[in-house]
């Protein structure tokens, strides 16, 4: 028992030491800060942290704050369209490229380069293109379409779609790259079997290939979802949450309250809500993947 453990530690001593940084990071930088944030959400901290305990007051206030609720609603809309369009577009691109097209390398490079750019760049460039006075709207009107309207960035009802446009441009390449990698891994003999069976190509993708890629698809959707929840840079660059709060997102709400608006209690309550949401979705996945299989066995 105890003696064996000590012997084991002695033998693997250096390994334990080498993993200390990782342990420190996990315990202090991740778990510790999480715990502290959650603790702060139960206090009345404003500019500076306070040690009091106000129960769930901050949460009540939070869900009474229209800006927070708006940000949640906005995120839901963005998430829905972003996931849908990225996935469909990415899959289509991957499938089309998989059809033995010439210049495949070129196409792949073109579709994936936005992913290598910063979100700030994505937001800024689309902000410029969608500029009503000097961007597409102006150009089209210059061509004679005097009634043409494309004022998404300044129109509260449409601004979310501008954000979606920028993020879809940024992220579809990722889905394409992952799905394409998956397609390439499909055994060629399955394709030959479908030719003998007389199954049309589209049906092969729908009924055979895409179901085979389910793990890859789930992975891409998970990765995309993560970037949605973290969405901050692109909104700040493109619209700064505006017009008004029409494109406010939770990450920005939290950042604003942590720094400019100096309402730490509220901000940590909001971040705890985000934390709980993510944990509810992710924890079962991580557990089943790594905890069960253990180290090298995976």
């Amino acid at each position, binding site marked *: 028992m105890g003696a064996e453990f000590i012997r084991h530690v002695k033998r693997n001593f250096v390994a334990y030491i080498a993993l200390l940084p990782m342990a420190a990071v996990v315990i202090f930088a991740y778990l*510790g800060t999480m715990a502290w944030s959650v603790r702060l959400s139960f206090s009345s901290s404003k500019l500076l942290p306070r040690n009091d305990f106000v129960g769930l007051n901050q949460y009540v206030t939070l869900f009474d704050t229209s800006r927070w609720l708006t940000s949640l609603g906005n995120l839901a809309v963005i998430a829905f369209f972003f996931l849908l369009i990225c996935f469909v577009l990415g899959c289509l691109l991957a499938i089309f490229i998989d059809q033995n*097209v010439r210049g495949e390398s070129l196409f792949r490079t073109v579709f994936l380069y936005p992913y290598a750019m910063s979100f700030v760049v994505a937001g800024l460039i689309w902000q410029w293109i969608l500029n009503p006075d000097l961007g597409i709207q102006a150009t089209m009107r210059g061509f004679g379409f005097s009634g043409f309207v494309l004022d998404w960035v300044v129109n509260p009802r449409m601004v979310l779609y501008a954000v979606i446009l920028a993020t879809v*441009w940024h992220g579809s390449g990722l889905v394409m790259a992952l799905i394409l990698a998956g397609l390439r891994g499909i055994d060629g003999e399955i394709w030959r079997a479908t030719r003998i069976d007389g199954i049309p190509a589209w049906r092969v993708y729908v009924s055979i290939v895409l179901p085979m890629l389910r793990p890859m698809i789930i992975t891409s959707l998970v990765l995309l979802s993560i970037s949605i929840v973290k969405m901050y840079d692109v909104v700040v660059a493109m619209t700064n949450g505006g017009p008004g709060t029409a494109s406010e997102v939770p990450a920005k709400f939290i950042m604003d309250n942590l720094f400019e608006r100096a309402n730490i209690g509220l901000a940590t309550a909001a971040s705890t809500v985000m934390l709980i949401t993510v944990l509810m979705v992710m924890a079962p996945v991580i557990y089943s993947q790594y905890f069960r299989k253990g180290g090298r066995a995976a």
Partner: protein
Amino acid sequence: MMRQAKPAVARRPLTYQEVWGRVGIYAFLGVVALFFLLPLYVMLVTSFKSMDEIRLGLIFSLPQQFTIDAWVKAWTSACTGLECTGLRVGFGNSVKILVPSVVVSILLGAVNGYALSFWKVKGANVLFACLLLGSFIPYQVFIYPLVRVYAQTGIYGSLPGIVLTHVIFGMPVMTLLFRNYYSGLPVELFKAARIDGAGFWKIFISIILPMSAPIAIVAVIMQVTAIWNDFLLGLVFAGRENLPMTVQLNNIVNTTTGERAYNVNMAATVLTSLVPLAVYLLSGRWFVRGIASGAVKG
């Protein structure tokens, strides 16, 4: 058995469905490629125009009067907050932040991956699972406590502070990359070395590290891209003297008073994208390998 050479291949004539199918594929890919390339084109074209030309509102036209004024201004004299010394400061800052962050986070990732793959350390897998889980959680949950701790220890708003932050938040992916790669190496190598009497560090430095070139390349590509494109962490932790290029870019574009100098903005945007774009174009397949390896999480 001598035979005459047969005349050129008698190919089955394509059915008209097949021809239209091919046309459709290329048309779709071509149109989408244009959509993806549009922002790059507009960025470049706008940056070489004069403001007079831009005010004409023809966003897609090539510059009538080609000028590099905007570039010079963006690099040397654009206003990034209180100072007007251009983006070159930001570029230098980004480099200052990038190099130590990349080096340290990759080294730690390699050591962690190595220890996790080959050594039995109790609780290591739990720690690793927590680390991975942490990578899915939005930064906002961790930020405020980190700020407080940095402030207490005097590294808030300094270069070591931002480097430490990048190391912390890069650790999950880096560790995952190396761990998965090392898990694929034959364990016999390790066993033979242990029988020869080598210890933890000896094996790591003499055997494992030399074999790590492929994954190291992937890790470098991913970290360089992630850190260079980072906005939020640099904004919070770098401090006014060390603000990275992305933050300065956003300042140039979104916080200028008076008429916006769109050509300067676009030049600045391209300048900020040069490093990650170069990495992307030069890395080719390695970039995709990086994405795919990171995606193995799910």
